[in-house]
């Protein structure tokens, strides 16, 4: 086990900056998730750590040792699990899992012992003599995990390992994976573009876009205190509502944001709570069972392209009709402020409290 330190890492493909100055320190035994939209450079970053790609510049350290270009992948003691699992089709499950040990010239009985340990942990003992093509997606994924861990690597890299599973398998697999990682305590870097997965698994999340890390923090930090507009709108479903400079709330050049689940009818708050109220014209109500989504606009802020969304939990039994204007409110502490130019989060302006539409 070891910590992973990444300093100002760049990886360019013919001028295209796939990884564009990434700093990241993953602590020993930590589970870090790289989260970002498709094409933002997650896989490239992972492959560079693994040594499958040579960095254009920058430094990667594993357990204090610099992984320069003359440390080949095999000498890095890093295990990687591929999105497609990349099992060896001509080898049985046993042959697949034993392969990394054979490459290390492990004695035969030790191989046997370690493979048994791994398959018992992932509950695939029955399949040892099967070929990968006779396994289901979930079983293949577990074989790939076994193959990655038998070698007891210093760090564990996973590239969207659950993306080939169906929704139900994914929940179980996520649970298994997290439990396994906590048991073994391997430093793990996990790539996904599914934020539910990221929030559920990660000790910390690195939110990436266009080759850069926009924020690196715990799931709660990333969700509650997004570092900039990208993180605010990328994380959360539906994303954070953003209002362009409302004078009463913020000075010009600032955006105000709040999460849909914090945007509730005024009557849901106590009389003396510190809230900011809005006149909210509801255009459409979506009933989703466990909650309701409202789509509408604010009197003070009309933009049909970007509706303001409210997310009412099923507990809140208040009647909300479409095509009406209602009084809605947000806890003033839940308002987030962003610089319009740079997109960076700003401290709340002290004076701007009260009614937005007064």
């Amino acid at each position: 086990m070891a910590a992973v330190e990444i300093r100002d890492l760049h990886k360019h493909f013919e001028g295209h900056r796939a990884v564009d100055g990434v700093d990241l320190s993953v602590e020993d035994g930590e589970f870090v998730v790289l989260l970002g939209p498709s094409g933002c450079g997650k896989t490239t970053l992972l492959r560079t750590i693994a040594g499958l790609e040579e960095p254009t510049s920058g430094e990667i350290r594993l357990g204090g040792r610099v992984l320069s270009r003359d440390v080949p992948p095999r000498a890095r003691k890093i295990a990687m699990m591929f999105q497609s699992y990349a099992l060896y089709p001509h080898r049985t499950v046993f042959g697949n899992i034993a392969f990394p040990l054979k490459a290390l010239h492990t004695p035969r009985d030790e191989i046997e012992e370690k493979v048994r340990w791994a398959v018992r942990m992932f509950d695939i003992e029955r399949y040892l003599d099967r070929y990968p093509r006779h396994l289901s997606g979930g079983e293949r994924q577990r074989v790939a995990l076994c193959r990655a861990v038998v070698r007891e690597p210093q760090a564990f890299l996973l590239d969207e390992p659950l993306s080939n599973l169906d929704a139900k398998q994914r929940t179980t697999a996520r649970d298994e994976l997290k439990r396994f990682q906590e048991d073994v305590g391997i430093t793990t870097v996990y790539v996904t573009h599914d934020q539910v997965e990221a929030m559920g698994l990660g000790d910390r999340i690195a939110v990436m876009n266009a080759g850069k890390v926009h924020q690196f923090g715990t799931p709660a930090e990333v969700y509650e205190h997004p570092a900039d507009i990208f993180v605010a709108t990328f994380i959360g479903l539906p994303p954070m509502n953003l209002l362009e400079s409302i004078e009463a709330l913020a000075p010009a050049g600032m955006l105000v944001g709040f999460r849909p689940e914090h945007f509730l009818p005024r009557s849901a708050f106590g009389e003396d709570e510190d809230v900011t109220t809005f006149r909210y014209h509801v255009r459409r109500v979506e009933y989703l069972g466990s909650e309701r989504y409202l789509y509408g606009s604010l009197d003070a802020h009309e933009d049909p392209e970007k509706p303001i969304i409210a997310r009412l939990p099923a507990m809140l039994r208040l009647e909300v009709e479409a095509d009406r204007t209602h009084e809605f409110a947000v806890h003033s502490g839940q308002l987030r402020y962003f610089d319009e130019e740079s997109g960076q989060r700003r401290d709340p302006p002290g004076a701007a409290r009260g009614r937005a539409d007064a």
Partner: protein
Amino acid sequence: MRLPFGPIELPPRETFADRESLLAKVMLAPAVLYVAVLVGIPFVLAILLSFSNARAGSLSFSWVGLSNYAAVLSDPTFRRALLNTVIVTVAVQVLVVILATAAAMVFRAAFVGKRIMRFFLLLPWAVPITLAVMAWTWIFDSTFSVVNWTLKVAGLLHGWLYWLGSPTLGLIAIIIVQVWRLFPFATVIVLAGMTSIPQDVVEAAIMDGAGFWRRLFQIELPFLLPVVTVAVLFGIVYTATNMSVVYLLTGGGPADSTHVLPTLAFQRGIEGLDLGQGAAIALFLLPFLLVAAIGMLRIARRSEMGSP
């Protein structure tokens, strides 16, 4: 609601191209005809001839049963030719597979001058075989052999090698020329096969700590096996049935020691006018090729399904 376009007009009647069963027959007919006329009839003729005492240039013949086969089997020259055919065919395939895999490895990597090199690689294949063998006879010439001179200059040779004048060296020369002729084709096939190796599986092997040889033998070659099998199958047929290389290089000599089945069949059947014996000799190629073909196809099918 009105759509912005009208309904699609169907063609009024069935055209020729719609009648697929007829189309299939028409399109297969030339191939079937070709096989029947140019392969089937000569093949049946060869079998019939091998049971007769037909001689070239004469129309009278009678059936002699198995006597051609008996004569051939008791003939030491024939047995030598049969053995030579096996030796040359096997040796050539082994060398071609090794060389072609190595060459494909080189050509897979990016390097300066790759296009030119690829052109040179395909040259032996494009050169007419007679022309090429003439060049090789000079290379192996008893007085002017470049091979000998090179070995001498390199200090590896102290005596002198009479390439085409000794049975062993003659066979080696034949093997060298056959390998040279076949290996470009095999390289191209293996190169094509390499594109079918999934990159992520190879990278997984790299991450698992496998070095070059382990990757080659345990990961990449199993993927290449079906395609290499095809190359070997073609190679066996090409080498075992080829007459021109031996005929032009050694002419079967010295003392009939480097004959292969096709050259011996030609010598006995055409030059020696004994069509019956020639046909019998040539037919000995058949079970040999058949067994090879069936075996190879079986391996190909099995490895396609993924079990070793």
